[in-house]
């Protein structure tokens, strides 16, 4: 920070005011209000009624919430394994190949599709009389039974997200110093050994960022579930974010919905904190 005196302009506060007011009014105030509502019974019509921790007590033995927690866990673990893990594999296989860019094109194309576009493509593939059933010669209800439906959606998500993760890893791989790799090669390291003991440690900072972003995003999975199953059938493919939306706007139980939102925030915050602490160590 500079020690020079502030510039005296008449409108200094006027200049930050629009930003501060927008952020305070549309982000901070709603955030705090939701935190307050999570301790109330509220249907949007009658004024909120303070009920203490009752909503949070209800969370603990709500079967729908348990399902949502389980599905969210599948999303988190699955995201690490597939879009991130497979993305790393494709990046490592292709980053120093001649014409590597061309090998990666198929993975980048799906990234152009938005959430709703993604559903447009995959619904006719996964539906009951759809292309996947015909192709595999089976009769599976991919989007009906749990946990198949969550796993099917995870695969769709992988199809879309692999490319961008690959791209991030490739950027990282291409920017690591060449000297240690050459030295290790001369010492006879190759293949898995070279990757595990030389390349992997060198790319750790980038991996930390990619994994961190994927962790937070997967905890908040909403769009893809909403466009493919709306959390159903029944409630069996809901994630925490979908449960929050349904409890609030389908069941009109605003107080309870707010408590789910608070829980989602706490889980996300805690996971990020623990993850960051591990990274910093």
């Amino acid at each position, binding site marked *: 920070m500079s020690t020079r005196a502030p510039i005296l302009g008449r409108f200094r506060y006027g200049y930050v005011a*629009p930003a501060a007011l927008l952020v305070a009014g549309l982000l901070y105030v709603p955030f705090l209000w939701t935190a307050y509502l999570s301790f109330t019974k509220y249907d949007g019509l009658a004024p909120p009624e303070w009920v203490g921790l009752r909503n949070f007590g209800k969370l603990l033995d709500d079967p729908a919430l348990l399902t949502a927690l389980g599905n969210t866990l599948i999303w988190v673990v699955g995201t690490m394994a597939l879009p991130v893990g497979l993305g790393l594999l494709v990046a490592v296989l292709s980053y120093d190949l001649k014409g590597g860019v061309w090998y990666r094109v198929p993975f980048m194309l799906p990234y152009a599709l938005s959430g709703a576009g993604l559903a447009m493509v995959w619904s006719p593939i996964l539906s009951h009389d759809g292309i996947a059933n015909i192709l595999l010669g089976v009769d599976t209800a991919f989007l009906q039974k749990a946990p198949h439906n969550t796993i099917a959606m995870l695969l769709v998500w992988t199809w879309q997200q692999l490319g961008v993760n690959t791209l991030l890893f490739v950027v990282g791989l291409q920017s690591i110093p060449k000297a240690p790799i050459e030295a290790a090669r001369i010492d006879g390291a190759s293949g898995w050994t070279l990757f595990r003991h030389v390349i992997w440690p060198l790319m750790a900072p980038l991996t930390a960022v990619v994994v961190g972003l994927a962790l937070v995003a997967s905890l908040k999975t909403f769009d893809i579930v909403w466009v493919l199953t709306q959390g159903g059938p029944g409630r069996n493919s809901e994630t925490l974010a979908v449960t929050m939306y349904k409890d609030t706007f389908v069941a009109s139980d605003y107080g309870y919905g707010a408590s789910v939102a608070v829980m989602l925030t706490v889980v996300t915050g805690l996971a990020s904190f623990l993850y960051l602490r591990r990274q910093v160590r």
Partner: protein
Amino acid sequence: MIRRAVLIVLGLIWLGPTYLLLVNAARPAASYDPSKAWQPSGSFALFDNISRALDSANLSDSLASTALYSVVSPMLGVLIGALAGYTIVVLRLRHGFWWFLLIFGGTIFPSQMLLVPLFVGYSDLGLYDTRGGLLLVYTAVNVPLAAFVLRNFYSGVAFSIFEAARMDGATTWRIFWRIYLPLSVSALAAVFILEFTFIWNDLIFGLTLTQTEDVRPVMTALAGLMTDVYAGTPVPVGLAAGLMVSLPTVLLFLATQRLFARGLSLGSV
């Protein structure tokens, strides 16, 4: 050799659905048959399918509203964020760092924490289901990132530029508008593109804060068509719609790729 083989096999698997999308989006709407989905049809009906998609569910009105949101909100957000960054860094606002933390802190709230109060508050204020209401929330969501990037950018700009302009008697506003803003075009553009894409693809705010077809953003409108394989919409029409709504972000990104790469090397003028 094994590496190439693995990449080719995986790549072919990935191309499968992409191929299905392109072939079937171009198929005449009535002739879709899941067991023949892999065979290209003789005729090219992509544009017919797109125009049918636009007619159904007022998608064209929804598309126009979405274009409005995703252009105007990031523009306002970027300007407001840049002005805040300029004031904090160049005008050396007292307690500037705390102002910055306040503004940037807005990024950490998951949107789920905002929905109920926004819905109730918007209903009370008559902003629910209005274009103005959506513009407002999209602008607010964009401000923190813009303030972050532009604050970084402006702290890399030589202070003597400001002093010289001051000597010449320019007002602080004029210096912002005529010097700092033009200097930061590449950073502004990079933030604009990220935010355009974010708003164009937004589902949850549109879902929560709108109702009528012409106010509703296009992603939300499309998601509404979705229940049980498009609820009667022919598959080729749905695919054409999906392709059409994905196009603007792709085109914008391709058109500005170089600017984007430059804007992301932030702070270096």
